[in-house]
């Protein structure tokens, strides 16, 4: 709860200085993968290693969601046999992993990025196109507006 308070205080005290976008990496095809290249705007804000670790974990989670293997085939065949009506009742594997990703991002925001004045937006909110990182300027320092 203390962490939540920090987030809310951040909104009130800080103004949004800029947004950095981490684009998709299509080198492996159409699977969901984000570039792990460290954006230059975050140089002064966050540790490079930390950021790359976050992105790598995120990419691994998406790879897990889209993995084609025994379990997904089973789900697909079962769905086909029931004329896909099973999707109305059951949550798909992908959706379960998306929830996991949402929890992961929230946790990362609370523990690591909010204290640094950053906020990661879940890519699903941006149609899995980008990871939006909002940089907040601390008003107390006197920068920004």
């Amino acid at each position, binding site marked *: 709860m203390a962490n*939540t308070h920090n*987030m*809310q205080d951040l*909104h*009130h005290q800080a103004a949004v200085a800029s*947004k950095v*976008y981490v684009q*998709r990496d*299509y*080198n*492996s*095809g*159409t699977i969901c993968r984000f570039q792990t290249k460290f954006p230059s705007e975050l140089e002064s804000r966050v540790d490079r290693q930390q950021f790359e670790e976050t992105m790598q974990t995120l990419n691994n989670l998406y790879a897990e*969601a*889209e*993995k*084609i293997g025994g379990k*997904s*085939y089973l*789900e*697909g*065949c079962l*769905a*086909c046999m029931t*004329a*896909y*009506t099973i*999707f109305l009742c059951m*949550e*798909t*594997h*992908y*959706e379960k992993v*998306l*929830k996991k990703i*949402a*929890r992961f*991002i*929230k946790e990362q925001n609370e523990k690591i990025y909010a204290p640094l004045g950053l*906020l990661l*937006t*879940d890519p*699903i*909110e*941006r*149609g*899995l*196109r*980008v990871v*939006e990182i909002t940089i907040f300027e601390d008003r107390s320092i006197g920068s920004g507006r």
Partner: protein
Amino acid sequence: MKHCEYQQIDPQALSTPTPTLPPQHAVVEEEKGETARRKWEVFPGKNRFYCDGRIIVAQQSGVLPLTLGLILVTTVLFFVFDCPFLLKHLTVFIPAIGGVLFVFVVISLLQTSFTDPGILPRATPDEAADIEKQIDNSGSSTYRPPPRTKEVMINQQVVKLKYCFTCKMFRPPRTSHCSLCDNCVERFDHHCPWVGNCVGKRNYRFFYTFIVSLSFLTVFIFGCVATHLALRAQGGRGLMFALQESPASAVELVICFFSVWSILGLSGFHTYLVASNLTTNEDIKGSWSGKSGAEDTGNPYSYNNIITNCCSVLCGPMPPSLIDRRGFMPVEESSQTVATEIELAAKNEINVCQLVLCLSVFVCMAHHHPPLGGQLSGLCSVLCWLMSKCTQGTKDLLESASRSPCPQTGKPQTVSTSCPDSIDPADPAVTFNPAVTPDPVAVPSLKCGGRHHSHTTSPPDEPRQQHHHHNRHHKTRSTQSSSKRAALHISNPAYNVSLSPPTSPGLGPSHATGAEDHRRDSFAALH
């Protein structure tokens, strides 16, 4: 309000397809009251939504009612007129199999029609500005913007990603913009009028199930009806006698005979596409079949194994819907957006009207100069007429803007995207971004006329052609429409490039698009 603000970025407030909202969200809803709108109500594409955003269809339902009608009529006739006889003389499995196939066909058809095909939501203004900045940095700074493509290496092959001017983003690989639905669709296959929706990543498996089960059903009914008539005609009584006894069978026979060829052909074609992990779009454009001849181009997405390809396309994980239809709009953003759009649209109307007024005053003054004579009086009256239309347009616009959008009809009505059907802002081949500062009156009306012309040929022709050729192979239909699309694409990039001056940065691309739509509305009124 604190709680409200935090909710805007709370990842838990994200969509899940099952519409269960967490309790915090319910609190937010109460606070927002009637002003809370769901995202489907402000969806910028040309889709229609039903059941409060649960069902999504394309703007034109195409011939979906005809498809459903044909299937229902044929199957009902089969069950009523043929099944009793066959049940008595053959086996009980015939109606059972027929029933199962019919259920499969209808369910998969409805799922294909009502599922989000994999629509990509448009880029937010901040994202679009960021991409523009990157393009400007890398490209030249001349008036003509550089061609907006990006190259990536996929599986040791160069793939070009195109920039979508409507959605303001670089399209992911295999994504295409559907001009009928005005959306970028992932793994775009084709827009199918028979199901009244695009076929893309999320509903391709439903579509495939539909055409395969429909081919089985058609062949099955055809076979059963033929058997029925043969059995009745036994004993030397003849076919005519059999047909007289069961006239409905003749109807079924005719329908099945004409549809079986096209449906079987379509199933075969799509089986080939699934086995080679291709889309109809790619196959028709010849993206991977080495159109230039010399290069060693293969499909970079194929696993080079038929079974793996089939499994990945049909049995792969079901991707989620990216457009979050049933999520709530953040209150400040939505009201701000609407307010700004109304202001902007009104401002543009007023600017244009002011210009028309100035021009007419100038002309009237010149009219008093004797040598210019009577011709100018005609011009003056035309300009006065234009001015009156303009004023009327502004008044109508402001009236319509003050009316609140109504969600019950299921049509997304927003101020920014109300556009007459004949004008299609979506086709990237003919989209342009006029500058927000007003252009001279004559030029936009020409532009409008040009676009009217090109668009009135494209969309109405496709369904007409398809109606006439419905018995022919699906491929020829798509070839014709795609060649038309290709022709439009080829002829218009020059048009596109030369007429897209940079929009003023302060307003943002989405607002410019809204303004552009309203200018088109007013000019449409003038034609």
